[in-house]
């Protein structure tokens, strides 16, 4: 490749615009919109994997942009009426096509890399857990962008019309939207809750976008990377072949790689959502201080948690005796959205994004929060948030252990009065019972809360038929 010619294309072709628009719009999107990419432990600047996944999610519109810019570039020879002159030159079409394709690849990949760099600098400041297993997510993302642009170039050359770039970009956007919303998702009804939930299916993995990030510990599986790489290479090959093709036959033949890529990719890609989004075992590996454990990803938060964790266990043991949990652990179970959470009798499971934990200020509040998670862990379907019986029961149960009602962290502003009004009479009634009966009611409530069967608050207030 001739670097002077590459330099010319880097300055004069669509390439710098493509890179500039991709970078600027991505940063604007991330910084100007206050979305869930700023929230808690899964914020895009919190962990490397979250960074990689959130920046991948942006491809739902960055990829169509790349396709559109590619088409604009592919249209250039036709619009400039250069075809005649170019046909008479000796240099093979593949050399000629490689230069603008290379220039666009360079600017798009640089823009994407810079985007990751902007987040990466902040991730370095936010976590001590550094690893490289996030890298394939971003590399495949960059490949998607480049392949999209090359495919656009080929299409722009094969269909030389001013309508090609906008229609192609819109088509690509429709593709990512369909894959995210309907075509790429399979609906299931959870028998336990009766809620309809959707999970991504195999088809959705042909889209560059990834599912929203719900857990720090979730990452894409290797088979997803492999399948997507095959698919992306297929699209890029077709794009380049279209860019070089001179005859109708060659153009038809150029469609073969993208079809073959799709078929091969669908053979390799997993169909089970649990094998697409998997737990990152290295990140989930527990780091413990006595009975209190967090994941490796959150190792830097263990020091703050160890004291309150021990204290909560001691208090629980004092109150519940042998039935009390014996350890505190960060929850590493990654359950599908909408499913009923599963809890343990012997372990206090918590997440740093649980409202009650995230909101806790100081050791005392953190202790209360862990007490609450040990007594009434909460049964809102995974990914949903609610407010009601679980929270009232938490207030009563924690008040019972501590001997006085406390305003628990994570209570929405304005709801604390309501909690107190509901919880105080029940708490008073409970305290008035004989000690053995108090414990029996608490144990019955805990059984309901841990199995997510029945309303623990009803059990506490004695309403439940037992």
């Amino acid at each position, binding site marked *: 490749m001739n670097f002077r010619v590459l330099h010319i294309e880097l300055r004069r*072709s669509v390439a710098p615009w493509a890179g500039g628009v991709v970078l600027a719009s991505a940063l604007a999107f991330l910084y100007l919109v206050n979305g869930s990419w700023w929230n808690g432990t899964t914020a895009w600047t919190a962990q490397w994997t979250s960074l990689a996944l959130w920046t991948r999610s942006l491809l739902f519109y960055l990829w169509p942009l790349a396709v559109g810019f590619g088409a604009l570039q592919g249209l250039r020879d036709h619009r*400039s*009426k250069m075809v*005649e*002159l170019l046909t*008479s*030159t*000796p*240099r093979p079409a593949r050399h000629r096509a490689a230069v603008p394709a290379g220039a666009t690849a360079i600017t798009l990949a640089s823009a994407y890399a810079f985007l990751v760099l902007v987040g990466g600098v902040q991730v370095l400041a936010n976590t001590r857990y550094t690893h490289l297993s996030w890298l394939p997510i971003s590399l495949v993302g960059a490949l998607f962008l480049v392949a999209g642009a090359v495919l656009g170039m080929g299409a722009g050359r094969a269909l030389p019309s001013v309508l090609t770039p906008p229609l192609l970009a819109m088509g690509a956007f429709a593709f990512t939207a369909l894959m995210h919303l309907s075509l790429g998702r399979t609906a299931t009804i959870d028998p336990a809750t009766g809620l309809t939930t959707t999970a991504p299916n195999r088809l959705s993995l042909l889209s560059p976008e990834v599912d929203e990030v719900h857990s720090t510990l979730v990452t894409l599986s290797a088979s997803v990377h492999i399948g997507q790489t095959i698919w992306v290479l297929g699209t890029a090959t077709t794009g380049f072949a279209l860019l070089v093709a001179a005859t109708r036959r060659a153009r038809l033949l150029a469609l073969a790689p993208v079809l073959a890529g799709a078929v091969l990719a669908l053979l390799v890609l997993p169909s089970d959502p649990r094998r697409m989004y998997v737990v990152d075992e290295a990140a989930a590996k527990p780091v413990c201080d006595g009975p209190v454990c967090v994941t490796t990803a959150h190792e830097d938060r263990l020091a703050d948690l160890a004291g309150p964790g021990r204290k909560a266990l001691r208090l629980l043991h004092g109150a519940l005796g042998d039935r009390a949990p014996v350890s505190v652990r960060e929850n590493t179970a990654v359950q599908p959205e909408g499913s009923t959470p599963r809890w343990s009798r012997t372990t206090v499971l918590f997440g740093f994004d649980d409202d009650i934990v995230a909101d806790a200020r100081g050791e005392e509040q953190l202790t209360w929060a862990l007490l609450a998670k040990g007594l009434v862990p909460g049964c809102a379907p995974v990914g949903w948030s609610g407010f009601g019986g679980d929270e009232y029961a938490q207030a009563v149960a924690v008040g019972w252990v501590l001997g006085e009602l406390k305003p628990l962290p994570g209570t929405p502003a304005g709801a604390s009065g309501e909690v107190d009004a509901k919880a105080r009479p029940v708490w008073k009634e409970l305290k008035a019972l004989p000690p053995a009966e108090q414990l029996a009611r608490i144990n019955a409530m805990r059984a309901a809360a841990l199995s997510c069967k029945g309303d623990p608050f009803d059990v506490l207030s004695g309403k439940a038929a037992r």
Partner: protein
Amino acid sequence: MMPAMSAADIAPTPYAWEIRATGLKVRVGRKRMAVDGLDLSLGTGVHGLLGPNGAGKTTLIRALATVLRPAEGTLELLGESAGGTGEHRALRRRIGYLPQEFGYYKRFTVREFVEYMAWLKEVPKADIPGAVQRAVERVGLADRAEERMKALSGGMVRRVGIAQAIVNDPSILLLDEPTAGLDPAQRLRFRELLQELGADTCVVVSTHLVEDVAAACSDVVLFAEGRLVFQGTPDELAAAGGPEHVGDSPLERGYSALLLNPEQTRGTW
């Protein structure tokens, strides 16, 4: 600065004619034969390709530029057959071509554009900057070389078209209507350039301006309805006409006389 002589430069050419066509037919579209049985041999020098509109001049030039493939007959360029399949890579390196409709990348500067074309013509990497500078100087655009193509006037764009055609020091130079858009002074300068180039190059200039031919061409090829009507010097063309023929100059009268053929009157206006 001239490129250094190599053994290939001084070796005798293995062919008698730069361009040699026998029974050449070139199809345009599905049916029409725009070049219909042409026998033509051209050597070094400046050959003016004259003929009425629709005579097939552009089709012939496109076939000579290896853009169109001959349908029948043989076409030999620099001793190599230009028919059949194949990329003609070695041959194309030695051809310069200015299409009738000269397209260009508007955002490129003059130098970038000519450099890009030199790269496409596979001029050796080390020679490109020098070759570009020489070509730009020869068309008088050295002081505008850093300007964007879109900022140029029509005449200047035409000169860039000539610069890109000569940047690879071609052995065959094909110019389709090169003087369109040039003002009289530029046209004079262009004729000088043609004569310089004709010393060692086979230049084929398609034009409908008879005075261009008179001033710059060593040889006239008169072409009508896809066939050769006349080939000779400008003087011979002038001699063919008499006072009874239409035209303001001897050449125009010769042109009229040769085209005034009973078979060819059906298409007048």
